[in-house]
C-alpha cells in the first residue's frame, strides 16, 4: 500500500494502457488534488474515458500505478464506496425504474443524501416511476447527474454527463454542482467538450492528446497565458518568434497568431508594436494546443516556428 501525498485524492503514476495493438494511454502521470474540480479535456479518442475508468477502479493499467486515497481502487470494495463514476451511456438492469436506480445508489454510497436526490429529481423533472429504458437521452443523463451529486462521494467522476441535455438543464447541473460542492467540498473529475460552459467552474485543467498529457495546469494561470495577436504579417512574425507560437493563420500581408506569453509585459509590448491584442480564453487555448501536430509541438517547445500560410 502506498500512502501517497496527503493532499492527493488520486494519483496516476506512469500509467500505460494498451488494448491489443492500440495504446490508449502512454506514460501518463498526474495528481488529482483533494477538494478540487478538474476538467479532463481532449479530442475524441484522446484517452479521457480510459483514464477515468482507471481512476474509478474499473480497469487495471497495463503498467504503472493508480492510487485513490492511497489505495489501488480495482476490486477494492471500501475504496469503491468512496468513488462514484457517472459514465456516458450508463446501462441499468432492464426492469429498473428511476427510483430503483436511486435506491441502489443509496445502498452503495455511505454519504448518500436523499434530500439532495429528491430536490434534484424535482429540478430535472424526472419521473420516479418510469422505467429508465423508456427515458430520453437527456433524462437518462439527468439520472446520472442526480446520482453523481447525491452520492457525495469523496471522488466523483463525470464522463461527459450532459449528453442530450438542453442548455437549461446543463446550466442547472453546473449551478447545483457549484452550490453542493461549496457546502460539501470533494474531488470532482469531469470530462467535457463544452469547454466554454464549464471553464469558470474548473480549478485544474488536464488536457490529453493521443494518450499523453499535453497540459496539466491551474485554470487561473492558463486564463492569462495566451494572446491572440493580429496585424501586419512581419510584425506578427517578429512577436511570435519571441514567444511560444501555438497557432497561426495568414491572409496576404495580414496574420493572426495564438501565442503563449509569460507576463503582462509581453502583452504590452505586443500592443506597443502596433498589434491588435485579444485575450485568449481557455477554449481557444485548448483548441490551439490540440491542433498542433506532435512535430510542430516539439518544434515549438525548442525553437520558434515559421509562420505558415493557411489556404482559404
Amino acid at each position: 500500500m502506498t500512502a501517497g501525498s496527503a493532499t492527493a485524492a488520486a494519483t496516476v503514476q506512469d500509467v500505460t494502457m494498451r488494448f491489443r495493438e492500440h495504446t490508449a494511454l502512454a506514460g501518463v502521470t498526474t495528481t488529482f488534488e483533494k477538494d478540487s474540480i478538474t476538467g479532463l479535456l481532449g479530442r475524441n479518442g484522446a484517452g479521457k474515458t480510459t483514464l477515468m475508468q482507471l481512476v474509478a477502479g474499473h480497469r487495471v493499467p497495463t503498467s504503472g500505478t493508480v492510487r485513490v486515497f492511497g489505495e489501488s481502487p480495482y476490486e477494492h470494495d471500501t475504496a469503491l464506496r468512496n468513488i462514484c463514476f457517472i459514465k456516458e451511456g450508463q446501462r441499468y438492469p432492464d426492469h429498473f425504474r428511476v427510483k430503483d436506480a436511486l435506491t441502489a445508489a443509496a445502498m452503495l454510497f455511505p454519504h448518500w443524501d436523499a434530500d439532495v436526490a429528491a430536490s434534484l429529481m424535482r429540478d430535472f423533472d424526472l419521473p420516479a416511476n418510469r422505467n429508465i429504458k423508456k427515458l430520453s437521452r437527456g433524462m437518462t443523463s439527468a439520472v446520472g447527474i442526480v446520482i453523481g451529486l447525491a452520492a457525495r462521494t469523496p471522488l466523483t467522476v463525470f464522463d461527459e454527463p450532459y449528453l442530450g441535455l438542453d442548455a437549461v438543464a446543463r446550466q442547472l447541473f453546473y449551478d447545483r454542482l457549484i452550490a453542493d460542492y461549496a457546502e460539501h467540498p470533494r474531488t470532482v473529475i469531469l470530462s467535457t467538450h463544452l469547454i466554454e460552459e464549464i471553464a469558470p467552474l474548473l480549478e485544474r485543467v488536464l488536457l490529453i492528446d493521443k494518450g499523453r498529457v499535453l497540459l496539466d495546469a491551474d485554470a487561473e494561470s492558463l486564463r492569462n497565458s495566451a494572446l491572440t495577436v493580429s496585424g501586419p504579417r512581419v510584425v506578427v512574425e517578429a512577436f511570435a518568434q519571441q514567444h511560444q507560437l501555438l497557432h497561426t493563420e495568414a491572409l496576404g500581408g495580414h496574420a493572426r497568431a495564438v501565442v503563449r506569453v509569460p507576463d503582462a509585459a509581453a502583452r504590452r509590448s505586443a500592443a506597443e508594436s502596433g498589434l491588435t491584442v485579444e485575450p485568449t480564453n481557455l477554449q481557444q487555448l485548448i483548441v490551439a494546443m490540440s491542433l498542433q501536430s506532435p512535430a510542430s509541438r516539439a518544434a515549438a517547445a525548442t525553437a520558434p516556428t515559421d509562420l505558415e500560410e493557411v489556404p482559404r
Partner: protein
Amino acid sequence: MNEDAGPIFRQVADQIENAIVDGSLPEESQAPSSNELAAFHRINPATAAKGLNQLVADGVLYKRRGVGMFVAPGAREQLLKRRRSEFADQYVRPLMTEAQKLGIAPHELTDMIDRWEDPR
C-alpha cells in the same frame, strides 16, 4: 464572469473593489462570502476565495474569525489612491497610442479634453 478577461479571481477582486469605490460596499460592512460569490458568478469557490484573499493581502478586507470578511477602514481611500496612480498607464497610454495612429497631436488632445462635456 468573463472568460475572456483574464484570471477570474482578479475579476472577483476588481468587482468588490468597484463596490467599495462607488460606496455600495461601505467600510466595516461585510463582504460576500466565497460560497455566495461562487454561486452568484457560477465560478469555482476556490477561485472566489482567492479573490477575497487577495483583497485581505492588500489590506482592503480583513477577516473576523468565524464571521467573515469586512471592508477595512480606509480601504476606499487606499483604492482611490492606487487607481489614480494606475490611471496614466491604463487609460492615457491607449489613448496616446490611438491618437498617434490617427495623427492627432497632443495639443489637439488637450483641446478635446477641455471642450469635453460630460454627457450625464
